[in-house]
Structures are given as structure tokens and as C-alpha cells.
């Protein structure tokens, strides 16, 4: 679109040379021939193809049989940037949990008229079937993927919350593994927080929310819709790396409000289910009576407090598009402070003043249907024709409540290996946030998606998007204080530091 954008390595548009802390990466890019980068990138993609990592991230169903292109140039977060971002993520996820707890319980936020009642009650994502049920340890959104865009060093905006079954974490892990193998020199130059402990963190999260009374060794499983699902690789990968069973609905049976898994040795009681199936297909007795999928009795077991379901049923009300624009109010209501991590500015056209502003600035804004998806019913003002703008003007006037509008943001870029060599490409980011009974943790990494076409802001894999590894740099001072005691791996506040080959960071820091 030609808007000058902040480049995460090279800095703001007017700047010459790389950002101070990232000069080394710039040197690496200059020192490594494009052909060599391309060779490594192809090697990574070959591995992904062999592993069968085919995904439909963000519900791109047509991406199911393809691998998503991988870009060899990592995107890097500085320690202080990450620390600030993490605070915002934690606040947001805590608010999401508090919101779900409230909305399926007391509904204080409606009684105090912070949200319009109809917004919740009329929304199909609000599931009255599970109202009144309290999940074990009152944790609802155990695994959140918060989609962000960036416009400056500390300017992050939430594009979308994912509090149901966010996918893509196996990309984070596989991308890192590829980078460690193919570009080991980067890990000796940069102190990169490890992400490979994610399966352990996830398992710890699952165990921490097991129902009381199931002992020291709760049985955890991953529930998948099956191998036809486009994210099946991720399901089996996560179950495998956590060392827990991967089950389908038919493997589970509920008896006397207790969930069991059928095994060769007989029934084994199940305490925690990380489900990667939608609410609709959890329990045919409660949701979707026409569906014969699911586990009959699962919700009864859940209501009786005998099993933890991760994430909790009913979470869709927290990440619904119609709710999104109210997230700043929701965060304020439950945290008592302003949201540290802002939304993309959103005009709710149902509000007369907002509608007036939108109608006056149609050529600058993106206008979206609240209940639309897949880019239907969307106006991108700056690139739209006069006729399209007039068509939307009429639609907005007729049904303002169905639309929201947002500014077109100058998304940050990261150097990316294009056909003609390195070139800036726009990126977004999905960090993963885990919530267990002992609090909220941000995984130091995430899924970076990159729009591979020049100028494109569309990072969807179905429309020419790829992925990158996301480095989170460690704060040296903090890491040092925690690497005493002769450990060969240092443990920082955000996880373990990967040490590789001759680059023994522990020694270096001492």
C-alpha cells in the first residue's frame, strides 16, 4: 500500500541502518549470501513437508493440504519490548478469564450496564447450557492465542482474541527447531528464550487445573476430531511431546458422571481433557442433539466437577467479533485499570457519532460486517472504487448495527527472503498465553505470520502468507543472576535459554 512502515530490524522508515540492538542480525543478513539463505529455507520446508505439517491456521480450510511457506529471517523482540508486551497480554487474558467467570455466573458486567445486554444474550456464542457451571479452579481460557499487529517499537494492537482452540503453536516449535538446526550461529549471537519447553508448560497447566481429589498424577489427554482435521498434525504432535494419550470421542466414555478412556487394559479415569473439537461436538446430549459426534455425558461430568475441559466450553463469547470492540471496557471493568494492550481503534457503527465519523471517512477506513467472515462484506477504503464506497455508504445507513470500522494500519515489516533478495514484508503475531491454577504465563515466542507479497497486508496462508520464527531476546542481567549453581542451561524469567555448540552462554555470562 506504500504506507511507510516501521521495520522491526531496520527501524522506522526514516532511519539509516539497523536498530542498535539488532545490528548483529543485520550483519548476519549481509554476510550470509541470499543463495545460502534460500538453501536453508528450502531445507526447512523439506522437513516440514516430510513431517506433514499442514495446517489451517485461523480456519483457512483451503490450506489443509499445503505446507505454509517458511521464511528463514527471524523476527526479533527485544527483552524490554517483550516484558511490556507480556504485561499487556497477562492483563488481557486475566480479563478474559474474569469475563467468562462473570458472564456464566453473576453477570455483573451486564447488571452494571458496562456491556449492552443484547450483545451477550443475543449472541449464539453465549451458551446458556453451561451457565452456572464453574470449571475446576475457575480457569476458563487456559490457552489463548492473542493476534497482534505492530506499528512501532512498543506499539502493539490486538487484532483478535482466540480463547477457544487457538492453533499454530506447533509452528512456533517446528520453526524454532529448524532455525536452531539451520542457523545455529544466530543462537550464539543472540540470547534467545527457549520455546521448546512449551509442551512441559502446557502439561503443567493441564495438571494444575485437574479437579480436586484426583491425586498427584492426574490423567491428561488430547481430544482430536480425528486425522481428517487439518490441524491433526498439531494435535498428535502436542500429545506426543507431552507424553499423553491422543484420543477421539469414541475412545472416551462417561459413566456415573466420570470420564474414562478405553484402553487395552480397561477403563482409565480421565481428569483433564485438552480438546481440539468445537463446543458443538463435545456432547450430543447438551449441544447439537442432531450430532452423533462427541462424548455423551461429558458436560454432566464437567458440571459435576469431575473433569477439566481445556479450554472451557462457552468461551466463544469472549473472542467473538461483536465483543472485540468492547474489550477495552471489559479489561477496565475487571482489572480496574486501562488496557495496557490496546485494540485497533474500532468505530461501532451502531453508535450514531461513530457512524457519522465513518461515513465522513469511508475512503480511509476498513469497514467490516460484525457477523461476516472470509473477507465478505468488507470495504478497504484506500483501495476501493468510488462505486464500492457508495454501495457501502448505503448499506451502513440502512443497517449501521451490522458494521464496525477500523483505520488501515501501517503494519510493521521484517526483512524477508523474496525472489529478488531480502525485502521488507508485513507481519502479524500470535503469542500463546497459558493460564493454570497458579497464574498466567506468556510463552516467550509465538507464531509470526508474514505477507509474502510485496505491499500486501494479508498474512493468511490461503492468500500468500508464510511464517517466521519469533525470537524473544533474554535480558542479560536477569539471566545472569539465575544461572548460578553450575547449571548448563540458564533459566531466565521467561524460560530456558538455548545454548548451542561452543557458545556456552553460562560461561560467557560469568
Amino acid at each position, binding site marked *: 500500500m506504500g504506507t511507510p512502515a516501521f521495520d522491526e530490524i531496520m527501524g522506522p522508515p526514516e532511519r539509516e541502518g539497523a536498530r542498535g540492538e539488532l545490528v548483529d542480525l543485520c550483519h548476519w543478513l549481509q554476510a550470509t549470501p541470499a543463495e545460502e539463505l534460500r538453501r536453508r529455507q528450502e531445507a526447512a520446508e523439506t522437513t516440514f513437508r516430510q513431517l506433514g505439517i499442514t495446517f489451517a491456521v485461523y480456519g483457512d480450510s483451503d490450506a489443509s493440504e499445503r505446507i505454509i511457506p517458511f521464511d528463514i529471517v527471524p523476527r526479533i523482540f527485544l527483552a524490554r519490548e517483550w516484558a511490556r508486551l507480556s504485561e499487556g497480554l497477562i492483563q488481557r487474558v486475566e480479563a478474559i478469564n474474569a469475563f467468562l467467570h462473570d458472564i456464566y455466573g453473576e*453477570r455483573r458486567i*451486564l447488571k452494571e450496564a458496562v456491556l449492552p*445486554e*443484547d450483545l451477550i*444474550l*443475543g449472541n*449464539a456464542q*453465549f*451458551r*446458556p*447450557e*453451561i*451457565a*452456572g*457451571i464453574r470449571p475446576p479452579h475457575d480457569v476458563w481460557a487456559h490457552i489463548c492465542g492473542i493476534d497482534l499487529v505492530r506499528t512501532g517499537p512498543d506499539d502493539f494492537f490486538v487484532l483478535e482474541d482466540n480463547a477457544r482452540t487457538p492453533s499454530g503453536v506447533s509452528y512456533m516449535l517446528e520453526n524454532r527447531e529448524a532455525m536452531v538446526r539451520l542457523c545455529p550461529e544466530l543462537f550464539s549471537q543472540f540470547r534467545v528464550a527457549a520455546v521448546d519447553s512449551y509442551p512441559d508448560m502446557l502439561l503443567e497447566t493441564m495438571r494444575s487445573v485437574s479437579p480436586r481429589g484426583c491425586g498427584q498424577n492426574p490423567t491428561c489427554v488430547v481430544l482430536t476430531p480425528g486425522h481428517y482435521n487439518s490441524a491433526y498434525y498439531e494435535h498428535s504432535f502436542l500429545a506426543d511431546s507431552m507424553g499423553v494419550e491422543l484420543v477421539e470421542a469414541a475412545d472416551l*466414555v*462417561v*459413566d*456415573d*458422571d466420570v470420564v474414562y478412556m478405553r484402553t487395552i487394559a480397561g477403563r482409565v479415569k480421565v481428569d483433564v481433557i485438552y480438546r481440539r473439537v468445537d463446543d458443538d461436538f463435545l456432547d*450430543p*446430549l*447438551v449441544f447439537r*442433539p442432531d450430532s*452423533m459426534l462427541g462424548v*455423551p*455425558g461429558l458436560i*454432566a461430568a464437567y*458440571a*459435576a466437577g469431575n473433569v477439566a475441559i481445556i479450554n472451557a466450553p462457552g468461551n466463544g463469547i469472549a473472542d467473538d467479533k461483536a465483543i472485540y470492540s468492547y474489550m477495552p471496557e471489559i479489561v477496565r471493568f475487571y482489572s480496574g485499570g486501562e488496557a495496557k494492550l490496546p485494540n485497533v481503534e474500532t468505530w461501532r457503527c451502531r453508535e450514531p457519532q461513530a457512524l457519522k465519523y465513518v461515513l465522513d471517512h469511508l475512503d480511509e477506513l476498513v469497514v467490516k460486517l460484525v457477523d461476516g467472515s472470509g473477507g465478505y462484506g468488507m470495504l478497504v477504503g484506500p483501495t476501493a472504487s468510488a462505486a464500492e464506497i457508495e454501495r457501502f455508504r448505503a448499506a451502513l445507513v440502512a443497517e449501521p448495527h451490522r458494521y464496525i470500522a477500523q483505520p488501515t494500519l501501517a503494519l510493521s515489516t521484517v526483512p524477508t527472503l523474496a525472489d529478488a533478495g531480502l525485502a521488507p514484508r508485513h507481519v502479524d503475531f500470535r503469542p500463546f498465553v497459558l493460564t493454570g491454577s497458579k497464574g498466567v504465563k506468556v510463552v516467550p515466542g509465538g507464531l509470526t505470520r508474514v505477507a509474502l507479497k510485496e505491499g500486501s497486508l494479508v498474512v493468511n496462508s490461503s492468500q500468500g502468507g508464510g511464517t517466521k520464527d519469533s525470537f524473544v531476546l533474554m535480558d542479560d542481567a536477569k539471566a545472569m543472576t539465575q544461572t548460578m549453581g553450575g547449571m548448563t542451561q540458564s533459566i531466565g524469567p521467561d524460560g530456558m535459554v538455548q545454548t548451542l555448540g561452543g557458545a556456552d552462554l553460562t560461561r560467557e555470562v560469568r
Partner: protein
Amino acid sequence: MRLSIDHRTTYRFSEPQARVVQLLRMTPRNTHDQIVADWHIALDCDARITEGQDGFGNATTMLYIDGPVERIDLSVTGEVVTSHSDGVLHGTLEPLPARLFLRDTPMTRADAAITEFARDVLGEEPGTVAALHRLNRAVGERFTPARGRPEAGLAVADAFARETATARDLAHVFIAAARACGVPARYVSGYCDRHDGDRPAPHGWADAWIDGLGWVGFDPMLRLSPEEHHVRVAVGFDSVGASPVAGTRMGEGDECLDVAVNVTREG
């Protein structure tokens, strides 16, 4: 009034089933106007039975039955003492806000014909006692009461186009019409000792929300508000959500369902 209820449900399977799991909404709760004096759910086979409550406040019973099972006889018997109430509900368990019940479902989605009918009947002030009684009568008068069991899955728009209607379909028409005019409404399943059918079945009617008054029952089949002749058991967005039994089975073959309901007045 003391009503004695005997509700028998028989499932017969053409092939033995490995397992049957059912969720029952078959237990009435005490309200100001109905006291459950005695209530039993009995099964003729081995089963684990647990009691619970769903999001709508309905009492639920889970049945876990191991196979091989070819037949299930479920018998629900009890006595309920009811009192005169003018149809206004008092003392019901209401965990959810009334405005939730503006939501439609595939079975209760009003089409243009129902919406037009609703506007005609309900007029300028749809959420009033007078308007809703008008609707109740108009729905009841529009159809010839149908005998027999309701057709599974019949959507309200299709039911509205017919000349005969079961109690369930009448309630669905009432609900769809009320919601079309912005009045929260829900389905009630229960029992009634005044049935026209020669083959008694569980009864169904509607509740509508009236600001300042609360939930009020409307029985379009009888063209009256439910009275001491009615025993409320469960509520939902529609008859599926409030249905006495939701069940799943593991096994081949067909099932055949037989229901017999007997409601008698004791003294």
C-alpha cells in the same frame, strides 16, 4: 389440586445396544404454585443414575446403562400439589435473564407469515397481558388440535402452514410470534390433566415475559393460562431444549419409542 402422574416410556431396540446414555428432564421443581409431594424415576435395568441441574435451572437426571440392552422401561411417577396462580409464575428457579429468550432456534424461527400474524394480533403493545392473551387465543383458534405424537423436527414455519397442530406446535407458534414482536418467550414441558387427545402425551405450552409482571404461562391448546391443572417440569428455547429425554445409544438397528402418560386428579 392434587395431581397424580404416571409417565411411562419404553424404548425397544431392534438390535442389542452396547451402551445407552440419557439425559432426562423429568423432575418437576417446587414453586409457589406447585409442591412436589412425591416423585420417582425407576428403570427396569441396571443403571448408574446421577442428579444434576442444567443451565436453564431444570433438574436433570443422567442415566448410564450398560449393554447389551434391547429394551428400556422408564417409569416416572409422582404426586404434585398445585394451586391457583392466574398463570403468573412465582418462585421458579430463574438462573438466566429473560431477554435471553428472544433468541430463536431452527424449530422456532418465525417466517414472514408468522411475523405478519404476530404483528396483526399483538398490535402496538405486544408485551402486555391483554396482547399475549389475544395471541394465545388466536394461535389456539387457528388450528384444529392434532391427535398423536408431534412430528420430530417440524419447524414452526412449516407447522404454521398446516391446519392441524399438536400442543407442541401451538406452543412453538406462540413463542415464535411473541419473539418476532420483541417479547421473550420459552417452551415449557410438563403435564396437564386436561387433554383432548385420545392418546395422552407429555404436554407443552409457553411462557412469555411481561415487564413488571414476570414470566406468565400461556397454553394455546387450552386457550388459557396454565392453572392448577398444569405441572411444569422443564423450560428451554424450544421443545427440543426442554424435552423430557435426550439420549444416545451405541449400537446398530432402529429404536421404537412408546410413551404413555396418565394424569389423574386425586380428590
